[in-house]
């Protein structure tokens, strides 16, 4: 009797172990997958273009430019997990900078440049958040698909940027006198770009918000089954509006750091970031159908996208190729995800 008992016990324990291993693979599979892709590509790049990919400069270059779009890819991940889409963020980047310039221009009375720049910076962030809020309201109040609504607002705000700036670009050399310039886009120890620190902080805060906060829990639930979420009392409208506000806020932030980096304002600011941001999210394994996705995936996805841009140039292809490759990556990762999802059912 005792003997039988023990052996069943042992068997069930072994069973549990096997299952938990399987579960580990199921839970972290997509994230391990993207890590695998990351290292695989890295090796390919090193073999294809050793002179570029064995030098530390290229990695400093990544950490300097990838944050511009990766910072937006993190809140975009949340929007997509919630089953929504935002295509207006490139225009929000530029609108934030317009608010920055208008505020700076309207405050010549403030003698302290740092205070003046700080105030303009806050104006940019508030503007971005407000535009996100308007996006959210249009979507939840009128029940318009977010893809369509944000195509519309993308053009509207780009138009507003052109009207307000009269299509003129201009130097931002004065920001260099403000502490905000080194704080946002400085070089720590002369090499390490500060914006990388900001990206890491935003990624960690984003992870906590998505995985360890009620807000993130509701984002997943809404994207998974909005009807269930509503039946169980989640205010799906408010949560979705908040997600759009977040991407608005961080788009404005990204707009400021991208402009500070080159110490120049272009009215076309952000247009080059639409594809790379979207590609980071989808390559990172976030499902277009909503309900699943990770911050880590997006983070790694962004660096793969950055490396691909560098690699195409390094192996002698022109910049024209990057757009083609980003488009291909978006389509392939979306197809792959749809396929994996079907198989899991």
């Amino acid at each position, binding site marked *: 009797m005792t003997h039988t008992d023990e052996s069943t016990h042992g068997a069930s324990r072994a069973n549990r172990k096997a299952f938990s291993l399987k579960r580990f693979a*199921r839970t972290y599979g997509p994230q391990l997958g993207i890590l695998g892709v990351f290292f695989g590509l890295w090796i390919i790049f090193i073999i294809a273009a050793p002179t570029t990919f064995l030098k530390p400069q290229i990695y400093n270059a990544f950490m300097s430019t990838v944050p511009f779009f990766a910072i937006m890819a993190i809140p975009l991940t949340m929007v997509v997990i919630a089953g929504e889409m935002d295509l207006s963020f490139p225009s929000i980047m530029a609108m934030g900078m317009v608010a920055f310039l208008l505020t700076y221009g309207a405050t010549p009375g403030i003698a302290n440049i740092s205070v003046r720049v700080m105030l303009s910076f806050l104006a940019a962030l508030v503007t971005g958040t407000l535009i996100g809020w308007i996006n959210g309201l249009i979507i939840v109040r009128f029940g318009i698909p977010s893809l369509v609504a944000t195509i519309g607002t993308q053009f509207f705000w780009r138009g507003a940027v052109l009207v307000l700036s009269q299509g003129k670009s201009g130097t931002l050399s004065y920001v260099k006198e403000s502490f905000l310039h080194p704080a946002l886009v400085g070089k720590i120890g002369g090499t390490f770009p500060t914006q990388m620190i900001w990206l890491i902080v935003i990624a960690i805060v984003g992870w906590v918000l998505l995985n360890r906060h009620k807000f993130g*829990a*509701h984002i*997943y639930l809404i994207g998974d089954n909005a009807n269930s979420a*509503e*039946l*169980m009392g*989640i205010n799906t409208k408010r949560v979705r509006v908040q997600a759009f506000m977040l991407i608005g806020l961080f788009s404005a932030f990204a707009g400021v750091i991208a402009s500070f980096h080159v110490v120049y304002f272009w009215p076309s600011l952000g247009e080059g970031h639409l594809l790379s941001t979207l590609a980071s999210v989808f390559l990172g394994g976030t499902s277009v159908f909503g309900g699943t996705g990770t911050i880590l995936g997006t983070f790694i996805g962004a660096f793969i996208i950055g490396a691909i841009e560098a690699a195409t140039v390094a192996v002698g292809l022109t910049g024209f190729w990057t757009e083609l490759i980003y488009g291909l990556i978006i389509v392939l990762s979306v197809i792959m995800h749809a396929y994996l999802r079907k198989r899991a059912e």
Partner: protein
Amino acid sequence: MDYRLELRNVSKSFGEVQALENINFQLGQNEIVGLLGDNGAGKSTLIKIITGFYQPTSGEILFNGQKIDHLTVPRARQLGVETVYQERALAELQTLWRNIFLGRELTNKWGLLDVPKMRDETYRLMNQSMGFTSSAIDPESYVRTFSGGEKQGVAIVRALYFDAEIIILDEPTMGLSLKETARLITFVRDIKRAGKSAVFIDHNVVHVYNVADRIVVIDRGRIAGEFITRDITLDVLMEKMIRVAETGNLD
């Protein structure tokens, strides 16, 4: 003594469709009321008004004699209403513990989740109440991988966990095996024994007859009649249900 819950002259229309018309419904303290009615009679619409999911087009809702003006799902849950919806209301791509605490996550005052506690509670519930024996099921498993009966079990246990005063079960036996159905009937009797109230909807007249103190029959959005269960035999009830379906009249 006040009714635990009362609907007065409640009507609900969806555009052209009049789903409920002048419903007067009461749920007593420690009473189990069974709702019977054909497909599309308006049973689910009625309970979704009680859970705050639908706002009535007209009429009043009272909890313990107090009129509640703008009932929402969170407000109803605060007032002690827990529901097993006909559509189950699960998020299948999420883990078991996230489903158990769906919309009612345990958090600190900053809104940060108490994940270890939710996992532990889920584990305890699974062993104690759900009686899940499959070793594949733990708080971290995805609900998508569960069987139909297991999914229904999640929805049921979730409703019982939060110490509700009023438990609403909309076709809870759907997809359950005989054994699981028997366990569910025991659950409902436990609700009664614990001094709580419940609304029980099922197409199986026998189940309703076995657990309900009172049976309310709904037909095409109106209350066609009601019976105290112990005043009527199962045979007579069955006959009447067939008559309602055919003629729209109980007698």
